[in-house]
Each structure stands twice: as C-alpha cells, then as structure tokens.
C-alpha cells in the first residue's frame, strides 16, 4: 500500500533525482525530522545542500524562492501549515503571479509552493483552516490539489519538473495517511479521466476524474469535490445510493485554478443537479465559482444547485465543535437528499 504521504515524498525524491535545479526551502525540513508532516523526509540526507532549512519567514522564503525561479532554478517551498499562506499573499499576488505577464512574457517562474491544509485534528483556529480559496482566481497562478484517487505524486512531480508557471499545491492533512487508489481499480465506481483544455495553453496536466456508480441508473445529482472532500463525497455517494437510492456522479478535479469545469458541465448536463463539497468556509469558496460557471453555461438547465462547506466561523479547537463546523458525510447526504 502506498499512502498519499509516501507518494508525495517519493515524488519529491524523484524530482530531486531527475533535475538538479530542484531545491526545497522550508521550516524544519531537515532530517531526521523531515518536515512537520514528514513529506520531505529523507531529502536532506539524500541531497545535502539542496534542502534549505529556513527561518520562520514565510514571505521571505517565498520571495527568495521566486528569485531563484526567475534565475533558472526550480524551487519548491514548503509552508508548514496552510493557515500561513496569508503571509505570502503579497509575494504571490503582486510579484510571483504577475511577473510573466507584466514583464511581457520575458520570464518564467517555475515555482511550486506546497502546503498542508485542513482540520479535524483539533489544532484550533490558526492551524486547521482551508484557505486556498483566497488564491483561486489570481491571474497567473495555478492551484492544484491532489486527492487520494489517481496519481498525487505524479501531479506534484509534473508541477515541479514540467510547469514553468507558479503553482500552489494544496495537500489536505487527512489525505496523507489514505492509500492511493488507482481510478480503474475502485470497487463500485467506474472512472473516466479528462484533461480540460486551457485557454491558449493546450491541455492541462492536471486530470479530472469522474466516478460513476457501476451499473447504477442515471445520476440525479453531480457531486463535485477535491482533496480530502473527494473521499467524503465518495462515501456519501455510496450511502446515498444504498440507503436512499439517490444515484450520483462524482467529479474530482485536481486543478482548482484556473477553473476548468468541462467535466462538471458534462455530468451536470446529464443529472441536472449540482452539489459541491469543500472544506473551506461557505461564502465565496471554490464551489461558488463552480456554481456560477455552471449556471452561466446551463441556464435553467441547472435545476438545482447547492454547496456543502464549512460553517462561517474560525475552526474551533474542541472536537465536538470542529466536527459540526466542518463538512461531513452526513452533511453531504442530508443536503443531497433535499435536492431530489
């Protein structure tokens, strides 16, 4: 069994091996510790001098990595907790994402910023958030998020080795210990994979998976979820089918921005109903853009649309509150039931 953690760690090793311009900057990333979530484990031992242990300076190391990227290296930054991506907002928005276009396409910024996101570990308001929504829709910035389905390691290594644009790579903490599942080998689901064409850029390397319940009647709702929420949505799809005979299709994008929702539209055209699930807070989350694009494209063909998301409060430390504040299988099931 390979966990998502293993896969990401192996992808880093492979990228370091494949290209000596790959470097990693982050806090507490040296062995034996190997990073707060161990994603970088072994790297500093195998590649001494290419793992740069940084002071607690998220903005500074992001800017430094951007400078390295502008000068021919392929740096990877680890932000210890996704909650701290607020600290790199200016570097991301006003520097990194702008350079290529603002400098008239004369430069490239092959930079990957990885960060663990999400709650359910009782870490409290400043160590549990799902904040990537603030960076979805920044021109020039790609945001990726693997789930446990498909090839999370491959997604990371292609971002590092092949993408000449800046990438924010979101790793939900609860994914780390899940086994990687090959889409073709999933019990109960039939998977198809698509890669939407991006405006003027050709195909994206980030796949979208569409999971249909094997042998089920046509889906009544299209579920859309990414990251760890894809796992909850998968469980909800099974419960909806077995307990309530509500059949769904589950669309799992790995690229959050730029938005590419062809697969969502394809499924929603069939089902007529759309339900997004995300771990971030509700208002102006990722799901808002999915719903907006869907109603733009489908008009009254979109018969019903809903979003499941976190309640609009900081993530509480107390477990009983945290469970209520964050989306659960139960929330998804209850919301879906109201849609049909």
């Amino acid at each position, binding site marked *: 069994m390979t966990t998502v953690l293993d896969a990401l760690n192996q992808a880093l090793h492979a990228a370091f091996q494949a290209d000596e311009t790959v470097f990693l900057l982050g*806090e*507490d990333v*040296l062995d*034996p*510790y190997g990073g*707060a979530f161990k994603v970088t484990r072994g790297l500093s031992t195998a590649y001494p001098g290419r793992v740069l*242990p*940084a*002071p*607690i*300076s998220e*903005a*500074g190391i992001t800017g430094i990595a951007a400078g390295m990227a502008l000068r021919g290296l392929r740096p990877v930054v680890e932000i210890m907790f996704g*909650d*701290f991506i607020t600290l790199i907002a200016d570097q991301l928005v006003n520097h990194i994402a702008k350079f290529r276009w603002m400098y008239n396409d004369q430069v490239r910024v092959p930079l990957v910023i990885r960060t663990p996101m999400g709650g359910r*570990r*009782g*870490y*409290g*308001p*400043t*160590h549990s958030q799902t904040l990537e929504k603030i960076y979805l829709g920044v021109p020039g910035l790609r945001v990726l998020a693997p789930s446990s389905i498909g090839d999370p390691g491959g997604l990371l290594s292609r971002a590092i080795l092949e993408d000449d644009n800046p990438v924010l790579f979101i790793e939900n903490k609860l994914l780390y210990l899940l086994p990687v599942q090959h889409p073709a080998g999933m019990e109960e689901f039939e998977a198809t994979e698509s890669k939407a064409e991006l405006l003027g850029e050709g195909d994206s390397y980030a796949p979208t998976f569409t999971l249909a319940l094997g042998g089920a009647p046509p889906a009544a709702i299209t579920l859309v979820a990414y990251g760890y929420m894809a796992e909850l949505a998968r469980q909800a799809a099974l419960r909806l089918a077995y307990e309530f005979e509500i059949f769904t299709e589950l669309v799992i994008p790995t690229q959050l921005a730029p938005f590419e929702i062809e697969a969502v539209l394809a499924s929603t055209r069939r089902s007529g109903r759309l339900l997004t699930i995300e771990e971030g807070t*509700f208002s102006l989350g990722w799901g808002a853009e999915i719903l907006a694009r869907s109603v733009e494209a489908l008009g009254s063909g979109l018969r019903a649309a809903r979003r499941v998301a976190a*309640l*609009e*409060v*900081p993530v*509480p*430390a*107390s*477990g*009983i*509150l*945290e*469970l*209520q*504040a964050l989306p659960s299988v*139960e*929330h998804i099931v*209850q919301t879906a039931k109201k849609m049909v």
Partner: protein
Amino acid sequence: MSPVPDPLELYRQILRIRRFEETVLNKFSSGVFFGTTHTYLGQEANAVGVLSCARPDDIVVSNHRCHGHFLAYGGEPRALFAELMGRETGVCGGRGGSQHLHWRNFYSNGVQGGTVPLATGMALAEKLRGSGAAAIVFLGDGTLGEGIVYESLNIASLWRAPILFVVENNRIAQTTPSELAVAGAIATRFEAFGISCIELDSSDVLEILPAAGRLLDEIHAEPSPRALVLHTARFGPHSKGDDTRDSIDVERLRRTRDPLVIHGARLPEEQRKAIEAEVVEQITLAFRLALGDPAPDPQSLPGATTP
C-alpha cells in the same frame, strides 16, 4: 518599584507550571486533550520572573508556548485544562485550544510574530488613553525570523510605546537550532531600532525578576519600549514527541538549568515539600474537575444543522 519577591510564592508558581505541563504531556496520549501542545518545561523562571513585576493592569501577549505565561499571569489551571479538553468552561469555551487564549488582559495566538504588532498597539492604546498600563510580549528566538516583528520594533520606538519585548531564546525553534535561523546577535536587533536591551543567560528567577522589574519600571516611568533577551533552556520536546536534539545535551540542560532546582535550593526542604503537596493537589484537582466539565453545544455554532 520592583516588587519584593516572596521566594515561596515564586517557587510555588514555578512548580505550578511544572506540574501542569507534566500533566499535559503525560495525559496527552490518553486522548483527553485535542490538538497539540507546546510545554513550558524548563522556561518557568522567565514567565514567573517577568510577570511578578507586571502591574495589575498590564497587558500580556503570548504565543504558542503560552501555558506558563498564562499560569504565571494568574490564570486558572482548571480553565486551561478545560480549554485543552475542549470544554465549555475552558478559557475560551473550547474554541481556541492550547494556543489561543484570552482572559482579562492576557492574549495569545498561534501565528508566530503576528502578535507583536498587536501588543505594540495595545501598549499604545494604554498610553493614548492615559491608563498607565504597559504591555509585555513574549516571543521565541525562531520568531525573530518574522518581518512583522521589525515593523513593530520600528513603530514602537518611533511612537514610544510602553512595551517590554521578552525574547525567550531557548536556542531552538521546533527542530531548528538558532545558528541556522538567527544571523548576528539578538540584542543588536533591538538596538538597531533604538530600543535598549538587557540580556541574561540564566534560569534563576531571582536574576530574571529584577532585570524585568528594572525595565518595567523604566517603561512605566516614561513610556517607551525596552527589550529583555533571556537565554534559556527548553527541557521537553517542541510539542509532543518531536525532540531532535541529542538526549545528552537535553540531559545536561535539565541538570544545569532547572529553575525549580536553582530556586528550590534556597528553600528549606520541608517548605518545598509543603508547596509540592499543595501544588500537586491543586493540579490534580484542576485536571479532575476539568474532566468533568461539560462539552460545548455544537448547535451553538451559527448555521449548525441538526443531525
């Protein structure tokens, strides 16, 4: 103006933090607490020494390693246990957890560095309102990596905020030794902004207390910032099981830098024993009471759905 310290009370306070934190570490694996924790083991004399000099209205701003500061400030062990357990009776009703505390004039937050301008602004507010209170903000050596610290030093100096910056230099940040994270000399980072600084390499509460007292007296006498750099020793892991230091080195620190032993040596054994018994009982009771405290109501969350 520095208080005349009662050596018994200082010992009691150091011990209270020690036993509280040991309880936290020991009980963590039993699953009673949520999330994670950062214990103050080994650094107790800093909080006790500095906060013994704080005046009743002074403000204390703390960080992730805040249990010791909170208890030395006068916070209730039971309320802190309850907060770690996510109970309604916790310092913040279970919402904040270990790193996010507020009680009276005590505030902590878990994002390194971001608390420093807050403390500076609080100090300024007290000055502008003429309350006479000052602010005390604790930060670690590693947190000197955050740029916002220097924005705050600059403005605190320009606007003469009545604030004491206390750097607890335990020479490590999580797993990163300060040689890898702090260039130059810490004290000069304050002096570069025109903030004068006292530096101490001690775990003796009776050395720390008067130094802090002198600086706080100066701040209260004429509002302006000061810094106190305390070279200190972290005895435990950063949070729970993550100590990457050589155990021989940590052992040496425990032997030579224990504030409880250093200060305890000044007290007769029977007094120490009496205090020990009292504190153990207090902490044991606090833990037990907290364990019995009610959980918050999840339906109290705005937008909560009934299951």
